[in-house]
């Protein structure tokens, strides 16, 4: 705890050396005597008392006074508990690990940066911020603390790992006039470069290292195994200290939670496992797995189409061969497919009954009777039928085959054959197998032959070195019909013994998900454009503009980086996932790096000065009472007690002043219509709210007829809310819970027609989100009677109350905005261009951090950077105008839509 104690002006502590002097002075100065007027003074002259009062003050009183003096000196030095670096004179360099490993506790970093900058905000002290996971080559720019603060607000964790070596090298290359103070805000992990980095930084300047406490080190979600009954996940942590528990979630594409499984790290272990049990249908809807409450890209596994499990029906004509499994076709198919699919063995009818998406027929010559009709329907509905040739097929075959076959087969390498067994040719470009490596040792010794025709080439997905088709395929309805011209077992070829067999079958399984064959395969030259990428917090977003497409050759080996952040690449339906964590990811905590590591304190820096001064004051009071007692004044203590008690009783009367302030605020609020924000008690958030509403007020004044006066902050506990049509409420995890009184007030306010604009400021959306703001929101208003919500429908009046708006960006873009669900539209009524309820929605919830986008400083200049630049800021302002208009005018705009109709009716 004391490790994080720092002093604002530490030189004052030098004053502690005068304490012995004070001790000596106090010792030689006896307490002042009582003065008494006494006429026979002459008679007293020359008397000697037999015993004098000790001229020395008692030692415990001396000690008390010394403590008071020490407390005052320490308090003047401005002790700060927690927080960032101690101020020095040189430049301040913040060396920030901003990989995904920092994202789970990013608020700690922000607090530490803010504290360090606040402490550093001496006159003209330059500050540089060096992120180790920069998207560009980091540049060391010295800024003043104000600009650094803005830059720090824009700093976000990136979804890849930090490259400390590069950042340290850049820092070493830049020139400082005096050795800088370096604060390394580490992620607490060692990638093998930690001590080298620490050494390099120590050479540049004075190094302070901050790291997470062991219990808060990041977790990583290793690649999952898609097993028969669910996902088996493995979670890695850094260091094995203590137990730790948590949950793993399976999330659908809209963020809905499909399953939850707990995991627990045993003490001393750095790996835990959890099994998410899910039925197959739900498993295939799973878009990602995530560790609950661990908002980082490393705690998210994206699942692409190849991870989906298909239900596959296996049908073989010869069921009686199970006593010789190595000769059975089914055995090889089962071994190849079972890791990737749920297999159902049986007859064709059984497989169709089980609603499979892929059916594999091994050496079935004819599909007979009703099975045939059902099979045709299965294909036209989108099913995939994979047939393997065999002895039966050479004799008689039905018409459910992609190409016409010759009767009889072809032997290669037999005693009477003229040709040796054939190898495979490389796969054609149109084939889903393209890009798969062709092993040299796969030979085909027997096959069924296709009747040559013009379109045969187009139907061929694989052929032998001499050009004869090995795999042919043809679409049937929405489905695909695929024929392997060899057996599923090793009787005709060595293909089933090779890995290629498995890969080919996996590609074909993808067709069962509706993918186009051209998209399923890729070769080294295929370009996979980014579809959606993760940010550092593990949220999917539109890929930033500087993300490069992946090459097919890279998809297996690519490491996440600035040009290839983790995410989905490829084409919708057959996308490939690039994840932040791969199977051999090891997390190692920072060991001994030659510098002490201070822990981030989750609490904000606490200024101890007022407390120390208060203690000193109390001790002084005690000292005064003791002195009075020593001088004998307390004999008539009763006379002192009364005024003393009166003073003590008056002190709690101080809230009277506050209530006086409250009534002032009520008067001001009642005289003018003002915008209001909730005072969260978190300083920077409140400042931003005030600046934001001030900025919005300026825009409103310039663009509308409404001229709001200066915005006011309201305290939900104390202030009357009824005067405000709209209250902006930013949500911050540091906010305290609402008191029951505040909850009642809020409910009344919402019921009586007020509107609260809640801003979680974390860009999240949706009910299942787990952003820090969302969690705080749930904690804060969980007990509140909130009406049913829906995302803003396209025809809602909020989109049209002043400007016509498509979406509602703030500082961020993309978060969904929710408000009270409208009653369903009346299907009989004419289509109305705008809908709103009879009332204004009591609550509007979003997470785009609007206040930051609106915020202006005293000179009217924007304070915060907006992700999308001026264009997005303009849209944010328009949203603000719309919200205010919506709150002020209610359903007036909706009614106005009917104005032409009403006028027409009046004219008639």
């Amino acid at each position, binding site marked *: 705890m004391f490790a994080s104690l720092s002093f604002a002006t530490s030189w004052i502590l030098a004053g502690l050396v005068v304490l012995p002097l004070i001790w000596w002075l106090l010792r030689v100065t*006896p*307490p002042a*005597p*009582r*003065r*008494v*007027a*006494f*006429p*026979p*003074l*002459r*008679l*007293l*002259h020359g*008397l*000697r*008392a*037999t*015993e*004098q*009062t*000790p*001229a020395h003050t008692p030692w415990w009183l001396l000690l008390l006074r010394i403590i008071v003096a020490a407390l005052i000196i320490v308090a003047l030095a401005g002790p700060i508990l927690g927080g960032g670096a101690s101020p020095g004179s040189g430049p301040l360099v913040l060396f920030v690990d901003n990989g995904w490993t920092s994202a789970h506790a990013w608020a700690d970093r922000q607090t530490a940066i803010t504290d360090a900058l606040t402490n550093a905000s001496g006159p003209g002290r330059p500050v540089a911020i060096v992120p180790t996971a920069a998207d560009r080559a980091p540049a060391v720019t010295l800024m003043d603390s104000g600009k650094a603060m803005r830059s720090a607000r824009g700093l976000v964790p990136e979804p890849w790992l930090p490259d400390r070596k590069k950042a340290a090298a850049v820092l070493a290359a830049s020139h400082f006039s005096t050795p800088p103070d370096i604060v390394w805000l580490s992620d607490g992990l060692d990638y093998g470069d930690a001590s080298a980095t620490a050494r390099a930084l120590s050479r540049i300047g004075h190094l302070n290292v901050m790291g997470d406490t062991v219990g808060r080190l990041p977790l990583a979600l290793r690649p999952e195994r898609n097993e028969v009954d669910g996902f088996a996940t493995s979670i890695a942590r850094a260091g094995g200290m203590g137990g730790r528990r948590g949950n793993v979630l399976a999330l659908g594409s809209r963020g809905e939670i499909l399953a939850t499984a707990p995991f627990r790290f045993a003490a001393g272990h750095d790996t835990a496992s959890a099994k998410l049990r899910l039925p197959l249908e739900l498993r295939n809807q799973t878009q990602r797995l995530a560790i609950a409450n661990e908002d980082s890209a490393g705690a998210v596994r994206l699942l692409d189409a190849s991870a989906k499990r298909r239900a596959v029906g296996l049908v073989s004509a010869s069921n009686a061969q199970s006593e010789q499994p190595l000769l059975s076709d089914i055995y090889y198919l089962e071994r190849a497919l079972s890791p990737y699919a749920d297999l159902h063995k049986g007859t064709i009818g059984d497989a169709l009954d089980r609603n499979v998406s892929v059916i594999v027929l091994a050496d079935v010559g004819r599909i007979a009777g009703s099975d045939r009709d059902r099979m045709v329907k299965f294909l036209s509905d989108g099913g995939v039928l994979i047939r393997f040739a065999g002895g039966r097929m050479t004799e008689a075959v039905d018409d459910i085959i992609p190409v016409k076959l010759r009767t009889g087969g072809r032997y290669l390498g037999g005693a009477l054959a003229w040709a040796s067994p054939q190898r495979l040719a490389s796969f054609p470009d149109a084939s889903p197998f393209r890009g798969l490596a062709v092993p040299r040792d796969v030979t085909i010794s027997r096959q069924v032959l296709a009747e040559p025709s013009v379109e045969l080439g187009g139907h061929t997905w694989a052929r032998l070195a001499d050009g004869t088709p090995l795999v042919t395929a043809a679409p049937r309805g929405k489905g695909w019909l695929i024929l392997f011209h060899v057996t599923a077992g090793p009787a005709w070829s060595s293909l089933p013994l090779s890995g290629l067999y498995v890969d080919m079958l996996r590609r074909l399984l993808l067709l069962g998900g509706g993918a186009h064959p051209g998209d399923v395969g890729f070769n080294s030259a295929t370009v996979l454009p980014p579809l959606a990428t993760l940010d550092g917090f593990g949220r999917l977003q539109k890929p930033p503009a500087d993300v490069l497409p992946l090459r097919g050759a890279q998809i297996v080996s690519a490491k996440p980086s600035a040009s290839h952040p983790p995410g989905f690449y490829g084409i919708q339906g057959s996308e490939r996932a690039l994840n932040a964590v791969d199977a051999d990811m090891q997390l190692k905590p920072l060991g001994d790096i030659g510098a002490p590591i201070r822990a981030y304190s989750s609490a904000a820096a606490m200024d101890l000065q007022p407390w120390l001064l208060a203690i000193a004051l109390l001790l002084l009071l005690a000292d005064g009472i003791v002195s009075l007692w020593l*001088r*004998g004044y307390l004999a008539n203590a009763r006379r002192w007690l009364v005024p003393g008690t009166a003073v003590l009783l008056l002190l709690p009367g101080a809230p009277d002043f506050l209530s006086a302030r409250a009534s002032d605020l009520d008067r001001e609020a009642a005289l003018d219509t003002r915008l209001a924000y909730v005072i969260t008690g978190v300083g920077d958030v409140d400042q931003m709210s005030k600046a934001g509403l001030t900025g919005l007020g300026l825009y409103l004044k310039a663009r509308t007829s409404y001229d709001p006066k200066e915005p006011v902050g309201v305290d939900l506990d104390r202030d009357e809310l009824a005067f405000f049509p709209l209250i902006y409420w930013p949500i911050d995890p540091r906010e305290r819970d609402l008191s029951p009184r505040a909850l009642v007030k809020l409910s009344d306010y919402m019921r009586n027609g007020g509107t609260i604009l809640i801003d979680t400021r974390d860009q999240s959306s949706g009910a299942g989100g787990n952003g820090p703001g969302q969690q705080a929101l749930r904690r804060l208003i969980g007990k509140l009677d909130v009406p049913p919500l829906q995302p803003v429908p396209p025809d809602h009046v909020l989109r049209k109350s002043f400007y016509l708006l498509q979406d509602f960006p703030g500082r961020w873009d993309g978060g969904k905005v929710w408000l009270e669900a409208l009653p369903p539209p009346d299907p009989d009524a004419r289509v109305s261009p705008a809908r709103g309820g009879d009332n204004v929605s009591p609550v509007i919830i979003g997470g785009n951090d609007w206040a930051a986008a609106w915020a202006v400083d005293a000179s009217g200049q924007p304070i915060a950077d907006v992700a999308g630049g001026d264009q997005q800021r303009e849209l944010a302002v328009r949203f603000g105008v719309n919200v205010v208009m919506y709150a002020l005018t209610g359903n007036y705009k909706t009614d106005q839509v009917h104005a032409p109709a009403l006028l027409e009716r009046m004219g008639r």
Partner: protein
Amino acid sequence: MGESFWQFRRYASEDPASAIDWRQSAKSQHLFVREREWEAAQAVWFWRDASATMQYKSPLAEITKCGRATVLALALSSLLLRGGERVALLGRGERPWSGRTALPRIAEVMAEAPAQETALPPDAPFGRNAQIVWLSDFLSPRADIEAALNRLSSAGACGHLVHIIDPAEEDFPFEGRTRFEWLGQSQSELFGRAEFVRESYRERFIAHGEEVSTLARRLGWTYLAHRTDNRPALALLALYSAIGGEAERRTG
């Protein structure tokens, strides 16, 4: 006081008209006053010390020493005047007063009297055979008191010393670290614990009282100590009988 004839003398303007012997005056051009034996000799002269130390009142007392001295002086005057005696204030230059009107005048003069600088009686004329009542706390140096007493005695007076004592002065009830000081006296006395000097102080104080008493007896004066927290009646009674006794001694 006397009844037998002593002499006629010419009337002076300050003589009351009732003192004129009209029979004798009718025999000549002038007015004559008949004087009787001892008549001018007996008067009681008061000296009430009103110096700064006399203005002291400790929390234990209800009245200042000066106040108590004034009360005693007035009460005694009242008793004497009722008995037909004459009363005067030393240092005020007036001849002794008598009669009913005298008491208010004495009170008026006493009330108006400014706080004297000096605690000792002034070198003022008084009639022969005067009795002097000296009310004071006798805190002046012993030599000064002795000189004043000698002077008064040599002028033919004798009388009574009334030692007015504040209870705090005698009992010394102080405790703890205390600095004793008095107006106009530059030095002060500091005691770490006042209670430890109480005994030696009281010895000194009693010795001081005895010193004054001894001085008085040697010259034939009486000495009476009076604490301001005691009832003044006792002191008054003792004083009155002392004055009566002295008068008897002289006439007898």
